[in-house]
């Protein structure tokens, strides 16, 4: 053999990239990593979308086919108005529900399909002193389901004081309320119109103030709002999930496979090896996050439509928002990857690495969930709160808010946290005891471990 190698070895950054490339190749050949970093993000949204549609169809179908039973009782001296029972049995037309001016005086003729689908069975219970005693009597009947009670009464001035009684802890009872309430209102409206006509008055004079809900938010703004509530949290979750398995695989997994010694004799600075691992984990996190965004982009319209109860939404992720989110996501992914890599390196086996990272994940997920709640905004102060800052910044960007100071502060703080996290991971990985420890180093010994002897460079 020649006396010494004549080759020119790669520098620190080139070596870092070569190590990262090898780790990525190795990592993505691992089934678990491939599933969590690639397959899951791609399949998550279409699967979620399909499941939600199926679920909604199932629930809707069951609901429509469920018949509810409503008892009608009345106070002494009060009579059940003619046509009320028919109005309760027959589903109201859309116009009736909206309380339109042309509401018919008589209940809508029952269409066979509608009656079949949203049936209400009515039982006349007779006279009771109050709604509670009628409800008690009605629900005490054990032979069949009792879902709601309409108690007709008047107050001392002769005004209607009727009660629709139901039990909100029972799904059927709540369904009965939702089904009966608009029918009662439609019947009452029809009565008012009839009464006004009988007196030769304008029906509108009986209803001087009428309020109608109307959402004026443009579809695209509504879409941006829903997206801004959902996406930041998902980005954080996917970054953590994407980094989880590679972090364990490249550290604890390496110790378990017995390849740590081989890695330690690589003819490159140890720093390049440590950095290469962190870069590989970070790339995995970014791959998972990007695939997640892509899948979300492809199915977001349908999915968010389901989430927002059928509202028509226009989902669009502007290029500018992407450009603003990308560097923040990169810095955040570096922080997550470095922390997870550093902690997972303490473990002796893959399984123990997973166990160690379980609680560590929460360090990222809990603040992210807290920040996702409405009410918290990106300010120069919150821009420095780890994890919270990135969620709030993503949200502001998606809403189209222009906050240059806050975004800059967020980027700076993310930079700082990423550097701290990388320094932490490199410190953990460079301790000599990592290569000789016979057991997993518990988290409670982390500080003592970090003070232990450093290995060769």
């Amino acid at each position, binding site marked *: 053999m020649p006396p010494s190698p004549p080759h020119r070895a790669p520098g620190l950054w080139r070596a870092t990239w070569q190590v990262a490339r090898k780790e990525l190749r*190795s990592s993505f050949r691992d089934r678990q990593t491939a599933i969590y970093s690639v397959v899951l993000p791609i399949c998550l949204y279409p699967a979620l979308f399909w499941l939600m549609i199926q679920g909604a169809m199932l629930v809707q179908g069951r609901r429509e086919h469920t018949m509810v039973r409503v008892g009608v009782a009345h106070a002494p001296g009060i009579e059940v108005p003619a046509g009320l029972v028919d109005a309760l049995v027959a589903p109201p037309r859309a116009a009736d529900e909206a309380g339109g001016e042309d509401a018919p005086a008589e209940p809508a003729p029952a269409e066979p399909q509608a009656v079949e689908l949203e049936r209400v069975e009515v039982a006349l219970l007779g006279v009771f002193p109050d709604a509670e005693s009628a409800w008690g009597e009605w629900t005490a009947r054990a032979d069949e389901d009792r879902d709601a009670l309409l108690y007709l009464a008047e107050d001392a001035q002769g005004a209607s004081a009727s009660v629709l009684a139901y039990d909100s802890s029972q799904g059927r009872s709540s369904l009965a309320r939702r089904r009966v309430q608009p029918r009662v209102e439609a019947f009452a409206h029809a009565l008012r119109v009839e009464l006004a006509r009988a007196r030769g008055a304008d029906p509108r004079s009986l209803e001087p103030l009428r309020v109608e809900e109307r959402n004026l938010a443009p579809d695209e703004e509504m879409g941006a709002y829903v997206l801004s509530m959902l996406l930041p949290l998902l980005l954080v979750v996917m970054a953590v999930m994407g980094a989880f398995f590679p972090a364990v695989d490249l550290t604890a997994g390496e110790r378990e496979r017995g390849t740590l010694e081989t890695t*330690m004799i690589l003819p490159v600075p140890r720093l390049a090896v440590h950095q290469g691992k962190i870069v590989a984990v970070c790339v995995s996190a970014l791959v998972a996050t990007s695939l997640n965004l892509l899948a979300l982009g492809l199915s977001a319209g349908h999915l968010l439509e389901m989430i927002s109860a059928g509202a028509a939404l226009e989902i669009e992720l502007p290029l500018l928002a992407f450009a603003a989110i990308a560097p923040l996501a990169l810095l955040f992914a570096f922080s997550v990857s470095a922390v997870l890599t550093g902690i997972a390196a303490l473990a002796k086996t893959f399984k123990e690495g997973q166990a160690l990272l379980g609680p560590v994940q929460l360090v990222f997920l809990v603040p992210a969930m807290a920040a996702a709640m409405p009410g918290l905004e990106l300010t120069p102060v919150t821009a420095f709160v780890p994890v919270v800052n990135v969620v709030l910044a993503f949200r502001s960007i998606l809403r189209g808010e222009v906050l240059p100071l806050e975004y800059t502060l967020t980027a700076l703080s993310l930079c700082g946290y990423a550097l701290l996290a990388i320094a932490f991971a490199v410190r953990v990985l460079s301790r000599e005891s990592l290569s000789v420890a016979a057991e997993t180093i518990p988290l409670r010994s982390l500080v003592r471990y970090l003070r232990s002897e450093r290995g060769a460079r």
Partner: protein
Amino acid sequence: MHEPAHDPDVLLLARGLRKVYHDPERGEVVAVHGLDLACRRGEVYGLLGPNGAGKTTSLRMLSTILAPSSGRAWLDGVDVTEDPLEARRRLGFLSTSTGLYPRLTGRETLRYFGELHGMAGAALEARIEELVAAFDLGAFVDGRTEGFSTGQKQKISIARAVLHRPPVLILDEPTTGLDILASSAMIAFIEGARDQGACVLFSTHIMSEAERLCDRLGVLYRGRLLAEGTHDELRARTGAAYLDGVFLALVREADREARA
């Protein structure tokens, strides 16, 4: 940094190498007490010792995996503490386990190490082909190493260790767990490396292997080098006819001294 009065034929030199571990329960544990040894070009040096004698720790210090607590060592004149990176470039190392990356193919493993040694392009591919032919890797080199037999793994590991033509080879119990065929191949490899002028340091507790291969031997016991020399020198010192007897005589003498 080069060692004082560097002899270009001494490719591996250790002076007073000591390793102390800090055990949270037992306090300071001295694994190796001031190891001195030298291995010359074209020489095979065998480090003998029972399990726990400090062989692996010594080899790990010499190969820059562990930093010595005190003492110095040089590989081909390069200080392993001062310039561990340069020392690693002059070293081919084989651990007890083959330590192959299981999800890489044999060829990818060789290419990876070659690139990190600064080899590239046609030169690297030519060197890989040369090793594929030399170690008869052709039938399996493009498969993932996780599917290899122990013998196949060992062959890839050897090819990986000599890929960059290192002047120093350190082998930690290279025949442990190998069948007779793979063992023979390993012994042939060590003999071949010596013939090509490499300095080979290997640890073993298999006396017959050491007897056959080693030009010089060191007996390590409880972290101390009890004796060092050629077979004849060691036999003369202990009066034993075979290496087993030499080893036992030295160990018993050390135990007697420790008790006294």
